[in-house]
């Protein structure tokens, strides 16, 4: 029997939604120009930054793939979270790349690239960021809707309506208030989300018990459930790929970097990174425990009927009592809304700032037109999300889909950023070669995997070796391309602004 009660749990969710909408709409009057809309006037301080980053980087989709990792891989499934935390702390403590990035006063990473590599590289970077980012985000809405339908026991026929209502709510305050609304609602959402996550995890530990979780992992996964190197599905390539993926994400993922760029100074941006780093462990451990608990209580048969992705929401719908269920749904709504709003804003800001940059240059837009275009872009991304979510049927492992689509731009952008900041010989030939290599390898892998004739070949390579190849080839392309230009280019004059 499902435990969601409309009068009790529905009221808790309703109060949360009302408070979020009011807060999001109230700050819209402070948006005076494009800078306020995209980076909140660069007035964000440390604690708001921590709340916003933590809320943005934990959505229902995060909860689902981390729980799926826990269900399928045991505690070892939290390895990507530990690697991400280490990468975050390293970058925050050293200021690696983010220090010069924030000091440059840019709104997006491609804007920095233009100063070093020229307008063409800025535009190409914007395009791959948007393609990779939107494909990555495309599954968020459907996964969020499916979680809510599963947990609350709604008729699955209402999935599209739930997705649409969720999206419209988020889009309204994001379109009107931009980054300011995102920051203020993120703050509220972080509090609600944290309360829900802690309460549900304590409930699960109380009901299932730590010993039972450990025994379940031991029985289903053996030593590989505790040690990624002893897990047949993980091993060295998984850990190595996720380590590089984590560093690239921390350096160039637009929603993370946007917090650095919105910070009032470099030191604040770095502190947001170091102090939020441990959150990335929590982000995998807490839903991972939920996934392991689902395995303990429902058994491996749960994956056979609905797929391993849905074992956790099915378990929660049967375990969480009325009252706490309202807090769970509000917490997950908070997690999803904060992620969706920040992601919509991030990709729209890259489209406005970088993909449309050449067109704005010929005839500069007024602040009023700029704001209008930004708002229209956020709305357009919302429509894309709705259509993609309705159309795209997710097959296989959600975390692998997320990493492969993100790698379309992470490999090239991280190589470009490091070269831009620290390698004086880097130039636009190397940058273009790196962008092409970084996009071609993951896309080629996705195609090889889909074509029946090459499916077995792709399976033998696996997503982790192909991902590692993308980073290695992208780095090599940057070096070779830059050295070739130095050797053969006839015009020695650098692009405007090159140092």
């Amino acid at each position, binding site marked *: 029997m499902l435990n969601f009660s409309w009068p009790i749990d529905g009221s808790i969710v309703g109060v949360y939604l009302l408070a979020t909408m009011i807060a999001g709409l109230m*700050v819209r009057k*402070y948006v*005076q120009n494009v800078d306020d809309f995209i980076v909140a*006037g660069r007035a964000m301080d440390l604690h708001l930054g*921590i709340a916003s980053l933590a809320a943005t980087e934990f959505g229902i989709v995060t909860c689902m793939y981390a729980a799926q990792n826990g269900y399928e891989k045991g505690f070892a499934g939290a390895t990507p979270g530990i690697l991400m935390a280490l990468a975050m702390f390293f970058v925050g403590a050293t200021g690696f790349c983010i220090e010069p990035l924030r000091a440059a006063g840019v709104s997006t990473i491609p804007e920095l690239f233009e100063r070093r590599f020229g307008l063409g590289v800025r535009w190409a970077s914007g395009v791959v960021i948007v393609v990779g980012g939107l494909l990555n985000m495309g599954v968020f809405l459907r996964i969020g809707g499916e979680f809510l339908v599963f947990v609350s026991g709604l008729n699955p026929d209402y999935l599209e309506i739930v997705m649409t209502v969720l999206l419209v709510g988020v889009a309204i305050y994001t379109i009107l208030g931009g980054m300011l609304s995102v*920051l203020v609602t993120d703050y509220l959402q972080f509090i609600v989300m944290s309360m829900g996550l802690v309460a549900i995890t304590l409930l699960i530990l109380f009901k299932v018990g730590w010993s039972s979780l*450990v025994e379940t992992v031991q029985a289903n996964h053996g030593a590989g459930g505790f040690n990624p190197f002893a897990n047949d599905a993980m091993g060295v390539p998984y850990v190595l790929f996720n380590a590089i993926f984590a560093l690239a994400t921390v350096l160039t993922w637009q929603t993370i970097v946007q917090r650095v760029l919105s910070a009032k100074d470099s030191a604040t941006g770095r502190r947001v990174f170091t102090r939020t780093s441990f959150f990335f462990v929590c982000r995998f451990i807490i839903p991972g425990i939920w996934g392991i608990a689902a395995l303990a209580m429902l058994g491996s048969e749960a994956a056979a009927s609905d797929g391993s992705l849905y074992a956790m929401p099915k378990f929660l719908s049967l375990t969480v009592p009325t009252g706490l269920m309202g807090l769970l749904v509000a917490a997950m709504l908070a997690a999803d809304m904060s992620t969706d709003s920040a992601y919509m804003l991030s990709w729209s800001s890259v489209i406005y700032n970088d993909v449309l940059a050449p067109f704005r240059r010929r005839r500069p837009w007024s602040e009023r037109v700029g704001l209008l275009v930004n708002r229209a872009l956020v709305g357009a991304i919302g429509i894309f999300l709705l259509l993609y979510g309705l159309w795209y049927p997710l097959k296989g492992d959600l975390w692998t889909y997320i990493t492969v689509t993100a790698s379309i731009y992470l490999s090239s952008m991280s190589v470009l950023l490091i070269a831009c900041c620290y390698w004086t010989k880097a130039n636009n030939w190397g940058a273009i070669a790196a962008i092409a290599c970084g996009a071609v390898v993951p896309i080629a892998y996705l195609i090889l995997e889909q074509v029946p004739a090459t499916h077995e070949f792709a399976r033998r390579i696996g997503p982790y070796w192909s991902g590692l190849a993308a980073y290695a080839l992208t780095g090599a392309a940057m070096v070779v391309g830059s050295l070739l230009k130095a050797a053969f280019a006839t015009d020695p004059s650098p692009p405007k602004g090159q140092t």
Partner: protein
Amino acid sequence: MSHPFWLLLSIACLVWYSTITIYVAVKGASDIVAMLKTLSPPEDADRAPTLAGRG
């Protein structure tokens, strides 16, 4: 104690969330007030001096 690494890490996550949430809830509210003050519309007398410090 079975698998102390994962047990300690799980406890640390719950402690981190519990403490950070309270800390950020208090401090973050004053950050929002300060941010909105900095971004107040032009008719607000505070706007002119704070704009100089933006960026």
